[in-house]
């Protein structure tokens, strides 16, 4: 009988090292942001692209944040009910929304690399959610959380690479924050 958990772990690791979906691959570097590209390619089309990126970016930012928090709480409480929590279901519906938006996102010249980072972040979020749902018993909890942690970190790194302050694609919402000096 096939151990589905181990099969899943193995399959999740079978990308080539240079594949963007490899957990062990080189971490992505920041790609040209929409505001930088606008200088080269003209502002209107790129500005439209950046505006359309924002809800996708926000969805991914939230999914990553939520999954991280859930992973911490699951690890520290050693409770496997994580997959039944409404917050995880919320992640799944947000992921579907982001996926639909991203598939219809038109990437003008020069922004393909930027869009690829969003796609990679989306894919790693899917993998992490899948890992959560693979948690069956106590025995697999830590193993699955280890894997989910790697996938979440990878998703975060890709999203970070696609961040741009001027395009309002930012990890931290500073509005009304205690740090805001202006």
């Amino acid at each position, binding site marked *: 009988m096939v151990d589905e958990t181990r099969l899943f772990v193995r399959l999740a690791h079978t990308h080539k090292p240079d594949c963007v979906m490899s957990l062990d691959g080189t971490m992505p570097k920041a790609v040209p942001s929409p505001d930088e590209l606008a200088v080269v390619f003209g502002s209107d089309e790129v500005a439209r692209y950046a505006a359309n990126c924002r*809800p996708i970016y*926000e969805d991914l*930012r*939230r999914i*990553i*944040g*939520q999954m*991280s*928090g*859930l*992973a*911490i*709480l699951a*690890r*520290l409480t050693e409770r496997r009910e994580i997959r039944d929590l*409404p*917050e995880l279901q*919320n*992640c799944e519906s947000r992921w579907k929304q982001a996926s639909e938006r991203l598939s219809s996102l038109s990437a003008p010249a020069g922004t393909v690399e930027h869009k690829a980072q969003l796609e990679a972040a989306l894919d790693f979020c899917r993998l992490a959610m899948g890992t959560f749902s693979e948690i069956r018993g106590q025995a697999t909890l830590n193993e699955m*959380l*280890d894997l989910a*942690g790697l996938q*979440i*970190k990878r998703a*975060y790194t890709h999203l*970070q690479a696609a961040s741009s*302050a001027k395009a309002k694609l*930012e*990890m*931290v*919402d*500073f*509005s*009304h*924050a*205690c*740090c*805001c*000096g*202006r």
Partner: protein
Amino acid sequence: MADYSIWVLEYCYVPKYHKSGVLYGAHNEGYVKLPYCYVVIKGRDHIAMVDVGYNDKEYGKTLGDRFGVENWRDPKTVLAEIGIRPEDVDTCFISHAHFDHFGNVEDFPNAKFYIQEREISKWVWAMSLPDRMRWMMVAVDPGDIVRGVDLARDRRLVTVDGAMEDVLPGIDLHAAPDSHTWGSMWVTVRNDGKKESEDSWVLAGDLVYQFENLSNNGAVVDVEEMYTPVGLAVGSQANLILATEEMMSQVGYESRRVIPIHEERLNDTFPSRISAEGLRITEICLADGESSKVS
């Protein structure tokens, strides 16, 4: 007899911060300088910190360009002023998860981190809310929570549910739910080690920003002095007032023993000096046998 030395170390600052953020209701009253600090608590067997600042590698440009944060220095530079290294720190108490308090865990490789469980669980909940309620999740960086995943895996993150006594000898944690954030906490150092301490210090995190939060002119309500909460609260100002009362009761209502870490005028009350980097080091108290780092 004092078991611990305590220093407040500035690691950057905002030169002009709107006063209404610091003091509830202080609209159109201009700006104040807002230092960003963390606290070092050094005892015979432990070196602990309250908060760890943020990592300029990822946010410095954003902060510098958009929010006027200046003169950031890394923990290695800042802690060297009192003769310790980041790797010497074994315990970090995170008062809340805002990026400028929880944003630099990687610079403390040997530390165990304590944070209120509610600070994480309610933030996860807030992230699930519709976009129109986005205000409830400001100033927390998902990256800090991502790094928390690694800390939890390595058994270096401890979530606390409410108060916790003697987390280190003579050091207690206290929760202030639904106040500045969902799960803010403060740290009380009973420096004589006694249960009914006569030498307690409260390290308030962002539950108190400046002295006026503890002692403000109360003429408007016909009292001499009153608490006035900080301007920024995800929870409520009422809960901030209740937390302030509890903090003050722990120090016998001696307000100088409640330490606000965003207070520029700590030097009016405690000995301090400015480092060569232009950042203030304030010495709150010294343990027996410890030498001053400001004289």
